[in-house]
């Protein structure tokens, strides 16, 4: 009895922490909740243009992530409610769901989540200790492991694609292993009928049909870019309007991520300086390189709108755990990331290389920290005493 009482006292005393007892208004839980809510427009756009696949991807990833988090906290003798309740696993799985192809069979998204949560996050010590961004690491893992199936699961977007890729259709593709082609053809048909209403002359019909052939071969726009840039002939790829039905989706996603980013910035969850530095560096490097070597580098609008640039700028780069720790270092980090994205997109062997660029600059972040650490007052500065 005495022992248990003394244990109770030990508990009380050891639970205390030393002064100062400051408490931020924003807890981790709130931050994660706001991030989740700010991604709602993006999810809506994704559903509208790419079908309901993302809902199932999100479900897959979330269930796997929550189960794994619970398992890890059991193994570590930590409170499950605390580890699962901080919602970071759900944010990871939502970002993973947004980056994975919408029609990816369930096995692969589960594997990606297992890698992201178990190996990238839990083994390094859980939230706040991970070196690499879990979502990006999971994406890279599945991209390298199964390039074929991941590449062929992307959907080329069309307005109102959710009518073709309905809940039941997506369900049968993702869980029952049904073929994607039927749904993709329906989506493509939508694009063409949409365009026909706008302009009916024979010439555009012919080009649209050519487009259709292109899409039918399973190539998304980034695939086409890749095959052209491999030969250094990217400037020969036909131009396009981002307001046309086929490319509208990218513009809408851009706007949706911008809205989410503005929400995050207004809550001061992400650092505005970093985002500004990223965009400035990205636009500058992309503009210069595009004008110098138009055969290899895509134009600035393409670079911004297509692929994962926007989600990277607002949600992945600004991850407080994996970016640099000093305020100067964060800007260098953003510039490095922009540089890597532009150059890996020109010379990388995968379609979109944002994830690889993020992982590379995450690996550089500790080095950037060391290089930019603040000089203590009075200590030698640039060789002068």
């Amino acid at each position, binding site marked *: 009895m005495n022992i248990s009482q003394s244990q109770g006292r030990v*508990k009380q005393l*050891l*639970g205390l922490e030393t002064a100062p007892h400051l408490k931020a208004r924003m807890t981790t839980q709130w931050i994660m909740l706001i991030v989740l809510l700010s991604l709602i427009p993006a999810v809506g756009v994704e559903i509208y243009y790419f079908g309901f696949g993302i809902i199932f991807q999100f479900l897959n990833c979330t269930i796997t992530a929550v189960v794994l988090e619970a398992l890890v906290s059991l193994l570590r003798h930590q*409170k499950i409610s605390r580890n699962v309740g901080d919602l970071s696993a759900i944010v990871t799985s939502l970002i993973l769901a947004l980056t994975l192809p919408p029609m990816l069979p369930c096995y692969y998204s589960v*594997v990606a989540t297992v890698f992201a949560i178990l190996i990238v996050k839990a083994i390094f010590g859980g939230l706040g200790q991970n070196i690499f961004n879990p979502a990006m690491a999971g994406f890279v893992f599945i991209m*390298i*492991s*199964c390039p074929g199936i991941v590449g062929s699961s992307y959907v080329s977007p069309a307005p109102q694609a959710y009518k073709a890729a309905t809940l039941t259709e997506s369900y049968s593709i993702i869980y029952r292993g049904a073929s994607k082609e039927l749904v993709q053809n329906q989506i493509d048909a939508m694009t063409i009928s949409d365009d026909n209403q706008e302009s009916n002359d024979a010439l555009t019909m012919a080009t649209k049909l050519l487009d259709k052939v292109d899409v039918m071969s399973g190539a998304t726009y980034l695939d086409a870019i890749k095959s052209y840039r491999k030969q250094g002939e990217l400037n020969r790829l036909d131009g396009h309007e981002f307001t046309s039905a086929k490319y509208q989706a990218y513009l809408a996603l851009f706007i949706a991520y911008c809205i989410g980013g503005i929400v995050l910035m207004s809550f001061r969850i992400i650092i505005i300086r970093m985002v500004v530095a990223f965009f400035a560096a990205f636009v500058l490097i992309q503009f210069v390189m595009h004008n110098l070597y138009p055969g290899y580098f895509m134009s600035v609008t393409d670079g911004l709108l297509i692929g994962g640039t926007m989600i990277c700028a607002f949600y992945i780069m600004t991850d407080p755990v994996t970016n640099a720790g000093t305020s100067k270092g964060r800007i260098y980090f953003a510039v490095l990331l922009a540089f890597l994205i532009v150059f890996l997109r020109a010379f990388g062997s995968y379609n979109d290389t944002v994830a690889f660029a993020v992982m590379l600059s995450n690996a550089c972040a500790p080095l950037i920290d060391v290089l930019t650490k603040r000089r203590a007052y009075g200590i030698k500065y640039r060789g002068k005493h």
Partner: protein
Amino acid sequence: MSETNKEIKYTEGTKKPCDMNKNGNDFKSMLKDFFKGLWSNNPGLCQLLGLCPLLAVTTSACSAIGLGIATLLVLTLSSLIISAIRKLIFKEIRIPVYVLFIATLVTAVKFYVEAYFPELYAQLGIYLALIVTNCIIMGRAEAYAGKNSILPSLFDALGNGIGFFIVLFVLGAIREILGQGTLFAGAYYLFGDFGKSLECTIISADYTLMVAILPPGGFFIMAFLVALKNYIQDFKRNKYENSFKIKSIQN
């Protein structure tokens, strides 16, 4: 001389050199050395020696078996020879002499494999010849065979060789199952008709993860094996230590 002492300490871990010489000859300590190489001082999982062939060759179970047998053979023979002639070697030039013997043995093994198992030879490539520079063999020669008589050296070499062989095989099997979905693919070239009956498919090709047979996968699985070994080895101690922890301050 000081350098050699360092090396001994590094490869032998906690073992004191004087202990070895004292009880080197009785059978019990030989068995102890044997099991030490097999488990607690395993060259692959504990000493972390020979990582280059360990990660490069283990893309399939069969090439892992091939390299494991070759390493075991060279390790045993070199330990035997070196322990037999250890008193004739000048201390100052012992490393070149060891290398000479090991290289001779490796060349013989290499020609043998090239003649009788050409497919295996093609698969192993340069790593068969690189057994010469394998740190396990040099480490055993320097740390044990150069100081002990023939029989203990034989047991030590066998323990280390078999330990390394098992690690190679397990790593190769896991990587092959995850990466290609098969097990013992190509065993026909190694074991003939018996090997053909061993070949089997475990996971269908749709569900394989190619990253397992790429270099990062090798590091991941190796890390998991080391972690598993440490977990099993320290299970009792960890349980005992955990019983003293105060649950309330662990979040």
